[in-house]
């Protein structure tokens, strides 16, 4: 009885361990096809978004002065913009940069802002109206970011 049980356990264990090899099923193949550079960009994007969310929360709870808040926020928004552009350029997805950014970084409470409203200057981070060709502050050429239109 005991020996039969032992044989049964042994055979069952071996069968279960060896089954994928005999079946040769490429179960849930590895993510070797994933673009590592893109993964790194997405990671960077998440870091910047979290930073912006933290900034916003710290400002609203009175831990940051307005000047520091504005300065840091602009810095991170510009960074976010560059990363999003790089992501778009890498061909993963044709998204409207502003749409993605507005969706992910602005506080839920904020009024929805459409892509018609503004873009950021890539050089100084100043807000500019969508459609403007040059930054009114530093004069840098503004990119045409509305990729879907």
């Amino acid at each position, binding site marked *: 009885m*005991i020996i039969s*049980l*032992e044989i049964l*356990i*042994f055979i069952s*264990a071996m069968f*279960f*361990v*060896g*089954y*994928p*090899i005999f*079946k*040769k*099923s*490429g*179960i*849930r*193949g*590895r*993510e*070797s096809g994933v673009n*590592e550079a893109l*993964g*790194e960009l997405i*990671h*960077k994007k998440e*870091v910047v978004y*979290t*930073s912006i969310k*933290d*900034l916003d*929360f*710290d*400002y*609203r*709870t*009175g*831990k*940051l*002065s307005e000047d*520091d808040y504005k300065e*840091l926020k602009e810095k991170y928004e510009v960074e976010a913009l560059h990363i999003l552009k790089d992501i778009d350029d890498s061909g993963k997805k044709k998204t409207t940069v502003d749409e993605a950014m507005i969706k992910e970084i602005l*506080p*839920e*409470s*904020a009024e929805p802002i459409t892509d018609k409203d503004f873009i950021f200057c890539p050089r100084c981070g100043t807000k500019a109206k969508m459609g403007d060709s040059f930054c009114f502050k530093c004069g840098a050429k503004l990119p045409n970011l509305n990729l879907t239109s």
Partner: protein
Amino acid sequence: MNEIGELCILLSLGISIYSAIVPILGVKRGRDEYVASAENSLFVTAGLITISSAILTYAFLNRDFSIEYVANYSNRDLPLFYTVSAFWAGQKGSLLFWSLLLSLFAAVVVIQNKNKNRDFMPYVISIISITQCLFLLLMTFAARPFELIYPPEDGSGLNPMLQNPGMVFHPPTLYMGYVGFTIPYAFAMASLLTGHLGDVWIKTTRRWTIFSWFFLGMGNLFGAWWAYRVLGWGGYWAWDPVENASFMPWLTGTAYLHSVMIQERRDMLKVWNMVLIVLTFSLTIFGTFLTRSGVIQSVHSFGQGPVGYYFLAFLIIVIVFSSYLIVSRLSILKSNNELDSIISRESSFLFNNLILVGAAFATFWGTMFPLISEAIKGEKVTVGPPFFNQVNIPIGLALLLLVGICPLIAWKKASISNFKRNFLIPFIVSIIGGIALMPVGTGHLLAWLSFTISIFVITTIVMEVYKGARARMETTGEWFVKALVTLIRKNKRRYGGYIIHIGVVLMYIGITGTSYNVEKEATLNKGEAMTIGDYKLVYRGLDLKEPVPTKAEVIATMDVEKGGKNIVTALPRKDFYKTSEQPISRVYNISGLKEDLYIILAGFPIPFQKDSPATFKVHVNPLVKWLWIGGLVIGVGTFIAMLPDWKGKR
């Protein structure tokens, strides 16, 4: 049945060796089916070790004394509750229990990562399997749980000190913590091996880390509770080497839990986080080595034997392998980001890390000093609680202060003016509290400081939560309670963390109460009284009972009066077990929020007489209950922090 138990262990060993090698081959040869086979191996191992564990439990319940382990740790009269917990009362069973937990955790990891982290999984499987091999090797060669003997009439029985509910919870919770840290360690190594050094491994193992940290902490707390209720010396923590051994990974684990937040937010401290998780995992192995090698005298020791040296060898392998991997990846682990300002949440987290690691190092030094002194001077110099208290109390107070300061500081860049503004109310409240507490501070400066800082920390946390809710109210127009609930729901990690901090403060309050402990010993004749603090205890005589055939209880009756009123009849006792020469003191503890009245029946003349005089040791231990309440609050906070985010599943 024992043959099946042994076979399952042996088979698991073979399969674990297979699953340590095959997934790596799968990666090298691009054969996904190898990885799938290794994943199945983890399921099979879990199944086999579960069968082994079930067989051992059955042997205990069935009083199968032909198995040496069962004969050594149980007997026919052992109550069912303790017969089940006898499973992990000794070395062999605890190794099997450890292996069981690891195999089950491994199976859960495979299920969780069925469709994600596929690049990590071969390495994760391999590292978990290598760790599993250690336990299985031990159970196959050095400490066989199913070893047979000529069956005695009855077993030796379970050590009476282990016949306590604390024993049922203390080892399993501690082991869950110890074993749990294998998972973040395995992912960290997988991240180094694959070169994918972002924060994916941190995010993937975040819940495992909190889970392990929580159980390690709870294991320590249950141990403290058990010591307090069973050992009968009036305290709960003695800086015993093995207590220290489980405290150290908890400290480094706490540092790790905080520092990963900086990596997630700023993409910084990647090397430091790797070092911390390696250190934490290594310290869990080190703790096991200390307990099982007998190199250091401890109440927890399993005695001298070869088992400890298996762990030492494994520890060396872990440290060398991990260090090599970290060094080889140093160039890509380095961060491009820098701290924006020295006054920022990041820098306060860094201070917190340094303090925690400093405390771990001080504890390590004190624990190992007897060995170091023996190696250098040839004599063992024992380091007692005064050293640990002297070093760790200031460190602990600095840490407590940081718990209060951190939430007041913004990420990235906090301006002095904002810092001052946020600091003002908690500062004023703690000053007022400190002044009010002046009377209790006389002669107890550190205790007073601890209470005052505790007030500061609680105020900052309450303010932080209030400000968050108010900010939400302003932007969403929600009413306060809704804003608060939504805020917590949307930021479970942040607010779960704050609740944990409140629990930590309550524990500090409980620990600080030790400064005011009062102790008195007296031999009383029947009808005589002793006083301690506000209490008067009148001794009414002894009684003898035999609730079970294996145990006789000598019970003293004492009327406890407070303010002239009889508040309770205390029944401290001594238990005499047939299986043990040493009687066990059963403390009578009257526990309140303000203080515990802790009564020990220390002695009485033998042979027993009802009217004999008896000696009592009585302690008044203020605020101890807050230590246990703090543990409960930490449990609630951990639960909230671990709750999944349902948003994405809708």
